[in-house]
């Protein structure tokens, strides 16, 4: 399962994106494979978030092609992106503090028993079981799944967000600065989780500032600078200094691929 598939799950071909006169992405080509953790690094404004938002369907590329398997989808809506199996674990986690852990994990995909017109009746018990199973998978122990989660720790909240992303049986999970707000032990736990997500045969895209995190978990490292891909190597072959040089502009001549 952890063998990279011969066909990429997601392919970006020479994607460009403009905001007014500003070129946020400039001919980015990127292939994401099942079972692989790709780290996307770059300074602020390098275009990381723009690329993530294109893959999640919030922006549409102005030039270039976006492929999911054999399907070309240039104008993707967020719903379509989710239907294609794209999940994002946001930096701010985007959880409902007023709901319990179980409700957050199954939010938007609640198991139902029967429907009556537009109303779908919840299967509370199955929802709890499903959530408990997902949380166990990510190694979270939360004793009370019904109490509003505002009391929980950063690590527990992170686990809920990842469990929710996995509940959708995704093909691509994007982690947007997942460790930015975490302490060192929680960071370590989160990185292990990212690894584990990829081992399930999912393509994982890690967006991070932190090269320690990137080298700890990534199979491949892609660096963006001013919207252009300036580095794309297997992590095993990459030197930290080279990545830093690419990010900061000392390597712009070696534009890849």
């Amino acid at each position, binding site marked *: 399962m952890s063998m990279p598939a011969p066909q990429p799950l997601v392919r970006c071909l020479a994607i460009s994106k403009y905001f007014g006169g500003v070129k946020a992405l400039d001919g980015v080509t990127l292939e994401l494979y099942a079972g692989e953790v790709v780290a996307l690094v770059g300074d602020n404004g390098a275009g990381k978030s723009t690329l993530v938002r294109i893959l999640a369907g919030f922006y549409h590329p102005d030039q270039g092609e976006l492929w999911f398997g054999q399907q070309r989808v240039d104008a993707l809506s967020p719903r379509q992106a989710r239907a294609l199996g794209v999940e994002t674990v946001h930096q701010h986690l985007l959880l409902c503090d*007023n709901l319990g852990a179980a409700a957050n994990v199954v*939010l938007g995909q609640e198991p139902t028993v029967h429907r009556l017109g537009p109303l779908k009746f919840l299967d509370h018990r199955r929802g709890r079981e499903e959530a408990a199973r997902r949380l166990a998978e990510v190694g979270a122990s939360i004793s009370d799944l019904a109490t509003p989660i505002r009391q929980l720790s950063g690590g527990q909240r992170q686990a809920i967000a990842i469990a929710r992303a996995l509940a959708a049986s995704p093909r691509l999970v994007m982690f947007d600065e997942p460790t930015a707000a975490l302490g060192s032990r929680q960071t370590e736990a989160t990185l292990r989780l990212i690894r584990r997500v990829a081992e399930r045969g999912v393509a994982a895209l890690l967006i991070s500032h932190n090269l320690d995190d990137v080298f700890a978990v990534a199979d491949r490292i892609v660096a963006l600078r001013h919207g252009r891909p300036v580095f794309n190597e297997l992590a095993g072959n990459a030197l930290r200094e080279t990545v830093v040089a690419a990010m900061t502009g000392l390597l712009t001549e070696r534009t890849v691929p």
Partner: protein
Amino acid sequence: MSARAGGQPPVVVAADAQSPASATAGRSWRERLRPYARNGGLALTLAIVLGVVGFFRPQYLSRDNLIVVALQVSFVGMAAIGTAYLIISGSIDLSIGSLFALVGVSSAMLARSLHPAAAMALGVALGGAVGWINGALAWRIKLSPLIITLASMSIIRGVVLLLTDGYAVRGVPREFAALGQARVCGVPSPVWMFLLLAAVAHVVLSRTTVGQHLLALGGNQAACEAVGIRVRRLRWGAFTANGLVVGVAGVLAASRFGSANPSFGTGMELDVITAVILGGVAFTGGEGNIPGVVLAVTLLGIINSGIVALGIDADYAEVVKGAALLGAVSLDQFSHEARDRFRTMLAIRERG
């Protein structure tokens, strides 16, 4: 509470390692009962107020009088159900009092030339349409719905006064009044309608995905968007449903009284918000239940009429209602603080 997720690297757990039963085992009976405790408090207060009024004025507890009280409660009650949905999902509609009047006078006017059933249907549809427009404005104009519906409250009241020249609509055919004045098992139809709407609203809120998503929306709209919940449809739907419910209330009121006054529903929005908040709905959204709202609206109705029955100046009712609201929300906050202190204490004890 264990901190394994954060404290130590997570242990790889097989999918079935944690039995589903343990998902519920962690909930103590205290945690399970907590949502109902507040409603218990409301019910107890209701019983005490009824007991006090009944002690001094036994005739207040007569069947006929209680039916009159229930009838008064039912119109505000129907509107409170719509508003509860809106506030739970993080919006509000201040124009409900004006809309109540607009629907009342329009359906009464239509009833003079149309079949009564058509006049009623058009009245309800008008309520839905105005709710739909409010929803569209609230979605499109990125301003608080408080401001937007403050504007529509004023516009709609103006339209009502223009339509009627400020005079009550009379000369409504008897057939139009039949529905509102009908009784089933001795109970007036508006009361039945209120109970029916409350029952449906309760089931939808607590048992369906729509209800769950309304609560989630009130908690964090961005989270709902991120998981693909159709947020716009949900918000818009809540406004439209609220308009329809106010429409039903307005039609029934016009039918019940056999006339419609342009001052119908003046200040109703404030009574309704008072009842909804007293009933345990968080003004910031994401929290609330329908039984609490029904209890609160009934309590306020009994305070209103009970004070009159006791021969106390009716103006004191306003003071008492305000004090009740203040007392209830203070209690909410104190109990939250006490719970946090309790949890802190437990945590300290657990970790030494």
